[in-house]
């Protein structure tokens, strides 16, 4: 335990050298810290505070590519860049919106397992007072020297698969511009709610 704390302290600025489990636990503790100050910080404050922890622990660029599936290849370079940028903003804004206050929640570690493709799944749960705990499973992949979250499975529902279905459907049915508009509207409503 002590050695883990030391490691976390040494690499406080980024997540280089942390194990997959440590990346998840560091991110969860940063999230809880923001939730505790959530009301005081307001949406803009939470967005700012979460921006770095999310970017350091998630591979948002890769996630943005996966959620559009094979549609990615059909996008121009400019569109790919736009999509990546807006997706990063949406991800942070979604956290800032959904984790807005604190009522005694805490994360607990359950187990971790390696996948055959060199990924790691970290099984955790969120304890919510007077409610059933929610299982959070994080799928991580190695990026350079650090482990990054590429998917979160909450009580068996994969965030990546959910988004992938939505994004590819919108791209196929309505096109790139509509997808951009819808994401922008979502970010806008998150900032107001």
């Amino acid at each position, binding site marked *: 335990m002590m050695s883990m704390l030391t490691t976390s302290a040494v690499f406080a600025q980024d997540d280089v050298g942390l194990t997959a489990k440590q990346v998840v636990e560091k991110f969860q503790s940063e999230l809880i810290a923001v939730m505790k100050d959530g009301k005081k910080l307001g949406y803009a404050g939470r967005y700012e505070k979460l921006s770095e922890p999310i970017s350091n622990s998630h591979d948002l660029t890769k996630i943005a590519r996966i959620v559009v599936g094979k549609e990615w290849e059909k996008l121009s370079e400019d569109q790919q860049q736009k999509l990546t940028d807006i997706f990063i903003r949406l991800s942070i804004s*979604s956290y800032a919106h959904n984790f807005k206050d604190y009522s005694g929640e805490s994360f607990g570690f*359950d187990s971790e397992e390696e996948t055959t493709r060199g990924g790691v799944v970290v099984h955790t749960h969120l304890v919510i007072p007077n409610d059933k705990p929610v299982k959070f499973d994080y799928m991580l992949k190695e990026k350079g020297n650090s482990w990054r979250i590429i998917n979160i499975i909450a009580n*068996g529902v994969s*965030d990546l698969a959910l988004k992938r*279905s939505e994004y590819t459907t919108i791209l196929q049915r309505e096109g790139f511009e509509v997808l951009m508009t819808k994401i922008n509207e979502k970010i806008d409503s998150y900032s107001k709610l």
Partner: protein
Amino acid sequence: MPIKMPINVNSSINIRLKVISVSLVMAVALAACATTTGVEHATNKDDPYENVNRAMYHFNDKLDDYLAAPVSKVYNKVTPQFARTGVFNFFSNLKNINVIVNDALQAKFMQGARDSGRFLLNSTLGLGGFVDVATDTGLDLNVEDFDQTLAVWGVPAGSYLVLPIIGPSTMRGIPGAAFDVAANPSTYLGVPIQLVSLLNTRATAEGSLKFIDEASLDPYVFTRESFLQWRNNLATDGKSESSMDFGDDLDELNSGTKQSGAKIEPAPQDISKTKHKLELLAPLQ
């Protein structure tokens, strides 16, 4: 990523599953109708009847906006929270009979014993089921139904279907639901009691429906995807969840090949022993 996603989404998706009654005849009729239309614009292999399903989704949505939501709003105003929780517990307890039957059909005998204990405890000390005393003693609510039993028996889910009033289902879900309705004692309590169950279920799901609006870019796809994943998760008792690797997609993107589709990759071994059950219709704030 949203904090409330799993509970809220799943309970809302389930609300219409809970209200199955006379609509089954209509449902079968629609399924028959769906087999002849909508195929040409299919974009998802699980949802070949997307166009028909979308139309039905919007019909259900409007029905909810103009009928269920306003009535439920009044119900929420005139009944205190403890009454709604009590009513929820009552119907949830009756449903345990069906859970126990399906435990047996899936050869889950230990779980069946626990679920029987849960039913007996809540029916007696829990004042006929209105108070959920069993959960406090560690006998959690398990979710088992005939659709899961069919899955365990090897019946494939078949195409995704949105049924009138009932909402999300699959081809397999139709016989599954018919069995569950027949095995639920509340079916035989008469229409007024059914209406109370329906109303309370809708009222309990208020927060989850709001969540779908908030979190989704395309509410239809969001609902379909959460529903299919949730049902799959239930049918496999949570064992399929960590296999969503998306590795193939990454390889595909890196190499630029044309292969597509995330394949489900079996985990090398099942390290996670923790089975979990999604809660149905968790009382929402």
